[in-house]
């Protein structure tokens, strides 16, 4: 990805992510006091499902760019850096897709 594009996308994802992450985390704290049945009721709202799916896709996209920067600064061995970047890419694809599948078919 072009560096300028990466820089802009990193900021754009941050702006969307800030309210999304705060809302999701707030929901987790509120639901930690509730039962399984009450939590089922929470997930009946399709908007909440969409927001959580967005959180995972945008969140991992933001995290992947950030991790690339961190690895660039602290890992000096090129091979280790490539492996670390590959792992970050795999994580940022697998976890959001798992969430997407779970929310569509299981929850």
């Amino acid at each position, binding site marked *: 990805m072009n560096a300028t594009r990466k820089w802009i996308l990193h*900021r754009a994802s941050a702006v969307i992510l800030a309210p999304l992450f705060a809302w999701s*985390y707030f929901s*987790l*704290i509120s639901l*930690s006091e509730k039962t399984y049945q009450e*939590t089922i009721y929470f997930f009946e709202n399709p908007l909440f499902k969409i927001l959580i799916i967005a959180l995972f896709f945008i969140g991992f996209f933001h*995290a992947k760019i950030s*991790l690339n920067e*961190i690895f660039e600064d602290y890992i000096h061995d090129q091979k280790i850096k490539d492996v670390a970047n590959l792992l970050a890419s795999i994580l940022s694809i697998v976890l959001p897709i798992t969430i997407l599948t779970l929310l569509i078919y299981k*929850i």
Partner: protein
Amino acid sequence: MIDNQNPISPHLQIYRWHISSLLSITHRITGVVNLLALILIFFWLLTFSLGESHYELFLLVINSFFGKFILIGFTWSMSFHIFSGIRHLVWDMGYGLEIKTANISGVLVILSSLISTIIFWLLGKGLI
């Protein structure tokens, strides 16, 4: 081995800490911690989808003393990263770059993150 007496450049630990450098590294650390918080949300949804018995085990863990400690820590980490991120975005737009302004905004980030963590928990637990 030849004893090299050449002077070397000063290392990070001998520099005096400034609020700017402290907040810069904390922004990175909280970013990584937030990734762990996102992974926790992943496990929340995963155990929920696996059924009631798995979900109750998850609730037991997060409602324990250790679990609450982690959750409060994650809340502060998220708050800090968001406020510090806003500070970075304002800088990116070219504002607030003067040393004095940057120091004041730095203190504001720390205070806001602490206050919002408290408000977040009081609201989340339905206490206010």
